[in-house]
């Protein structure tokens, strides 16, 4: 990563051009397109719900468009070489979330955009501000690794706070995941802890990966690590189990452990870690199933939600009804009955979108996530330092895993766990943390795509040793 200035060949074409394209104008167009889609969606929601179109339906989407333009400007000035597709995808998802949350509160409350839709809009402003601040203060992602242990400690503390707080200050709907300040509000520290821990994992694993890559013996074609090197993975596993037991949250626990194991795998390139991780996961899942009643409930609901359609299975059954009613094309924005599903604006926002925009709409939403995850991986492939690679890979995978766990949960692919849907679910903590995640991803992407004096693709092709190995 310390390529000598001027040593490489000049760019094969456009060498006369003033400087390589940042592709920021592409991003601007895509952000405008996303805002336009949100505007059209918002208008059609109001037309369907109120049977008339007023100027009110325009404020929120126009405001959102403004917020996203600010985000675009932040990228333009602070991370000019970052991937131009990620931000528009995030903007579109966030806008969809605000619109559908607004639509849900609209059908419940009155004819004005009050309630959750408005609040989510404010959260979007806060999140984009946070996003810009992260881009501003973190000018080089590598500086994060200098504070790796601080981040690790902060992450662990954030995870633990809800567990040690009395239920009154930490429990909402049975999940002990919150810090509640009575009269002020609540935050979900786990969302931020996830980021802090990923920074820590990335830094820690880069430092230790030589040790962790050591194999002691080969069993059935798999190189197993030495017993004493199992420490970190077992520690992560135990920590995840603690989260599960003390915070009664299957989804978060699964997320932490999954992210850790995959980052371990990326760092060491050893499939054995994946297998060990899967084994530990199976063991943990099985004992949790046996010991933690909540987990057993979730599994039995998953196996046959319709058997308990009026009881524990109610949420999932309603979610499936919503998805099924939506069918291929959906009932149309504003024309469905998504408020039939409990927590329609948070855990089950996907069912809401699936009901009103159908399989095609959900397919588009999933594609947006897939693009974000793929571009995140792309960024990690582009960037030259190991820490950046590992961090971006972890961030991208965490988005993909989280979407898989929650969408799979509401559509009965896997047992339902309470996770937020990134950028879509109602809630400030999740929104801010995920915008922060995107800021880090863009920061790494910016670093990877920023032209040194060397033309990058050429250098990558010709420099297999350090870059590819590390």
């Amino acid at each position, binding site marked *: 990563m310390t390529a000598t200035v001027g040593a490489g060949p000049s760019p094969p074409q456009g060498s006369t051009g003033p400087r390589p394209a940042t592709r920021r104008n592409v991003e601007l167009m895509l952000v405008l397109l996303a805002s336009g889609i949100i505007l059209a969606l918002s208008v059609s929601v109001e037309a369907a719900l109120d049977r008339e179109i007023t100027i009110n339906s325009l404020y929120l989407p126009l405001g959102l468009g403004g917020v996203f333009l600010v985000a675009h400007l932040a990228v333009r000035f602070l991370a000019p070489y970052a991937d131009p597709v990620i931000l528009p995808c995030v903007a579109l998802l966030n806008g969809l979330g605000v619109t559908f949350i607004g639509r849900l509160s609209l059908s419940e409350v009155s004819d004005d955009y009050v309630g959750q839709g408005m609040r989510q809009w404010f959260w979007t402003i806060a999140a984009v501000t946070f996003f810009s601040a992260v881009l501003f203060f973190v000018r080089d992602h590598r500086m994060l690794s200098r504070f790796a242990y601080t981040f690790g400690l902060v992450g662990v503390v954030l995870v633990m706070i809800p567990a040690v707080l009395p239920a009154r200050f930490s429990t909402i709907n049975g999940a002990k995941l919150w810090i509640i300040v009575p009269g002020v509000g609540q935050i979900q520290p786990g969302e931020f802890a996830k980021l802090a821990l990923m920074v820590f994992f990335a830094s820690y694993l880069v430092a230790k990966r030589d040790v962790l890559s050591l194999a002691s013996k080969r069993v059935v074609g798999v190189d197993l690590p030495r017993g004493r090197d199992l420490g970190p993975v077992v520690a992560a596993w135990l920590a995840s189990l603690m989260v599960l037991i003390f915070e009664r949250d299957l989804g978060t626990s699964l997320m932490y452990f999954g992210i850790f194991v995959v980052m371990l795998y990326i760092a060491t390139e050893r499939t054995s870690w994946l297998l060990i991780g899967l084994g530990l996961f199976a063991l943990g899942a099985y004992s949790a199933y046996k010991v933690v009643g909540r987990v057993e409930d979730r599994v039995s609901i998953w196996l046959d939600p319709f058997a308990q359609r009026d009881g524990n299975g109610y949420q999932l059954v309603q979610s499936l009804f*919503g998805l*099924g009613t939506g069918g291929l094309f959906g009932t149309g924005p504003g024309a469905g009955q998504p408020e039939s599903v409990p927590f329609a604006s948070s855990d089950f926002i996907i069912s809401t979108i699936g009901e009103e925009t*159908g399989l095609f709409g959900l397919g588009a939403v999933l594609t947006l996530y*897939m693009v974000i995850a793929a571009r995140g*991986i792309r960024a990690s492939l582009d960037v030259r330092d190991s820490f950046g690679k590992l961090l971006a890979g972890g961030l991208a995978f965490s988005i993909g895993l989280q979407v898989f766990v929650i969408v*799979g949960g509401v559509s009965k692919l896997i047992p339902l766990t309470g996770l937020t849907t990134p950028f879509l679910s109602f809630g400030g903590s999740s929104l801010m943390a995920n915008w922060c995640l995107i800021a880090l991803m863009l920061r790494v992407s910016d670093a990877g795509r920023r032209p040194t004096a060397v033309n990058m693709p050429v250098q990558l092709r010709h420099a297999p040793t350090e870059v590819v190995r590390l």
Partner: protein
Amino acid sequence: MNAPLRKVAIAVFVLFGLLFANLNYVQFFQGDELRRDPTNQRVQLQEYERQRGSIVVDGQAIATSKETNGRLKYLRTYPAPALYPHVTGFASPRFGEAGIERSEDAVLSGNDDRLFVRRVSEIITGRRPKGGNVVLTLNRQVQQAAFEALQNRKGAIAALDPQTGEILAMVSGPAYDPNNLASHDPDVEKRAWDQLNANPDKPLLNRALRQTYPPGSTFKVIVSAAALKDGATAETRVPSPLQYTAPQTTKPIENFSGSSCGGESVTLLRALTVSCNTAYAKLGVELGSDKVTSMAREFGFEDEKLSVPLSVAPSRLGDIPDPPSLAQSSIGQRDVRMTPLQGAMIAGAVANNGTLMRPYLVREVQAPDRSPLDTTDPQEMSQPLNAQQAGELQKMMQSVVQRGTGKQARISGVEVGGKTGTAEDGDQRQDHSWFICYAIVDGEAVGAVAVVLENAGTSSSSTAAIARQVLQSIVKNRGPR
């Protein structure tokens, strides 16, 4: 690190592929099933967005939708719940519809094609579309009289206008309160549903249309009609032994408590007046099963498709393979079964000079603004007898009321004809009791009534008395025109 990163990317693609595949399964392959699941309220919630039309009797709504503040925008209300439960049926958020609410659902909910143009114009003008109204043929006073006469006992009353087929009253006992089933409180709704379904008296069953009973001696009217059509008159003498043993059997048929019908042979008029079993069993066998069967069909038996538009259970003759079973069937036993409405249709056809009018309950379907969309016209269903034969049968049935088993139905100044019936309901329980009758005022048939009391014993006097109250109300409120 690039190799594992690429593999992770592939893994993420695989996970998303699983999501896609599963969503295809849930939303596409399973979609219809999920959409139609009875506990999926979405379609219904959609329906409650629109004000459902009213069901109207004599200008008054007997089912109407009131605006609420809840999630379901309109509450279905039945202002006179005891009086019409089996007519209106119910529209329940959870348990669907029954009765007129079901058969006329398209109009009431506003989905009917005849309302399409209005629906479009309402969307354009921004008004909330409403459902259409359904106006019934029932007469409020007659229905009230029938309800009071039945006193919520297990049984049913059907009354119709013989000249048009309009159903004037339809009561089934025991009644139930449809308001509970229409409740938006799921607990109230569920409890009412469970209780009604657990009730051994089956309050939800509309006995007037959906329950068939052995007709007993009322079936003798049909055998009489077959004989009259075959050339007999009221004065034709028929053998009336104390016992009659049909060919191919040794088991004799006797009269009620073994009594005599008034000699070894009696006139047809007398045979019906005293409800002579042996005479009718023998008469039926001599006419043959073809004539008896075809006459019963002329009167409406074995009609699989009759609907008013509530669907009517077909009245059945059952298999009549040999003379003994024909003998049994001719006195309304064995496998013969009929609905109370069928009973009223028989009496009505006799009163209407032999012409059976198609019974109907919906007079008019209206748009939300009460302009008519569709009106039901009286329709001839069949002509079992000609006027002269029907006149003979009227003589016989009036004799039953004047001098025979139906004296309780007499109304001074009105020609009332009728026929009693007693049907066995197994060995353990009391018999069902029937009465079918009609009223003619100034030569015009004004009403036909059938009454069934379940397990009421042999006291046909009470069914005749019930029928009389209903007939009286018809005469007072309807005829002569």
